[in-house]
């Protein structure tokens, strides 16, 4: 049974889509600016069916995947190290707080100059961009491990490794998970943004190319595809997060 708010929300989205469809089909909005939603979906299906997009999809996804692994592994490791060294952490904290004020895309061209066009600068940009959110989540998670649990670890005379693996990590996991969720979004943003600015392949590059060649339907098809993929990924992670929370009895 859907709540009243949820059904109203669905209604708003549906009405907006229908209104857009009607406005585009009737010619109130020129098809040079915006194509009808149904045509976007058809264009997307055609693109997927033709298979011409496969190399680009592969590049974008492998870049996002590698960057995500690097940023989660590096972020958790750095978070643990900083948590263990309060002096260093204290010195770095103002910079971590200001990190997302840095316009990262301004440094992408430098990475291209250093590493050449290809997956490498994209992966670097995305992992640098998303790592700090994982570090912050790890620190928050470790800070909030209940004292009782740490005392229990002492009572059981656990080794540092045991106490980390069976107490600290599980207790910090919910915070870590929300960090990973953000890192997924950030990796997508960085990779697609980078491909947009300067690249020779990838989904972002294809969107920019379609825009330059006035291929409206193709461009919107690609955009809808990217949005669908990211929204689905986010919803899956969100669902997993809720499942994990319920299992803990929260």
């Amino acid at each position: 049974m859907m709540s009243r708010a949820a059904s109203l929300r669905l209604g708003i989205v549906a009405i907006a889509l229908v209104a857009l469809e009607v406005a585009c089909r009737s010619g109130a909005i020129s098809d040079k600016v915006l194509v009808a939603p149904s045509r976007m979906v058809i264009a997307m299906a055609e693109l997927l069916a033709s298979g011409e997009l496969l190399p680009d999809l592969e590049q974008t996804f492998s870049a996002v995947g590698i960057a995500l692994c690097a940023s989660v592994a590096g972020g958790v490791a750095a978070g643990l190290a900083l948590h263990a060294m309060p002096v260093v952490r204290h010195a770095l904290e103002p910079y971590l707080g200001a990190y997302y004020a840095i316009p990262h895309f301004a440094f992408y061209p430098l990475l291209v100059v250093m590493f050449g066009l290809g997956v490498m600068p994209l992966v670097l940009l995305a992992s640098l961009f998303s790592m700090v959110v994982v570090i912050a989540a790890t620190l928050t998670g470790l800070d909030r491990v209940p004292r009782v649990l740490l005392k229990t670890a002492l009572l059981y005379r656990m080794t540092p490794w045991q106490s980390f693996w069976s107490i600290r990590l599980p207790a910090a996991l919910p915070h870590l998970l929300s960090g990973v969720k953000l890192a997924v979004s950030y990796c997508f943003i960085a990779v697609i943004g980078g491909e947009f600015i300067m690249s020779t392949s990838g989904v972002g590059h294809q969107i920019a190319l379609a825009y330059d060649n006035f291929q409206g339907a193709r461009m919107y098809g690609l955009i809808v595809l990217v949005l669908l993929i990211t929204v689905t990924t986010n919803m899956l992670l969100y669902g997993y997060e809720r499942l994990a929370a319920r299992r803990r009895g929260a």
Partner: protein
Amino acid sequence: MTERLRSALAPIAVLLFLLLIWQLMHRIVGNQALTAPVPTLEHLWRLVGEARFLPHLRETSFAFLQSLAIVWVAGVFFGVVLGAHRFAGEVMEPLIVGLYSIPKVTLYPVILLLFGLGMHAKVAFGILQGIIPVVLFSMNAVRNVNRSYLRAASVMQLTPLQRGWFVLMPAALPEIFSGLRIGFSLTVLGTMLGELFASQRGLGFLLMSAIELQDTKTILSIALLITTFAVTANMLLGAVERRLRRSQASNAERR
């Protein structure tokens, strides 16, 4: 060493360390890929002094200030409305969060088609990037306002406008301010991204033409300029935010 002195020195030590890494990287990858810190600063100084630089700076600042004004005012307004009206907030929140998590760079061509090349597209893109956290933070801030304040407001029969201005705003201010700070950073990012993709003027345009010429010095100088601006502003806003939180906490204690 006193505590205060140490807490001021530590970030400076980090800054020096970063400069050292920069210099080392320069040694490793060479002058073509990464200019050393001192020549970059010299180049930046010369660049700012040049007459052709000012119009670009003015263009970018103007676009940024317009976006920021709209992001702050409209963001807080919608956030407060959605936070105060519980049902409307419940309907809209998942939509807004969904919009927040998508890579908005993909929507850039749509903005260009809607607004055309130039100032409007830049401002629109800055708003698109910056407004959502402001809305979300203001909404949560208003929702978390102490219930007894609201009851006091209805006992005094305040009009909705008075209620918003005298009760909700002061109580929610510190948290709203966090939203404003994050919105600020994202608006910088948005405006600059807008200039990178398509424009004929502005710092982003200078950056893009420097990329085409492989002019590393200029790329680094402009990136450094924008970063310094963004980080400094972020720290100032952060200081104001901490002050607001402290004064609110001490007010709460006095009661």
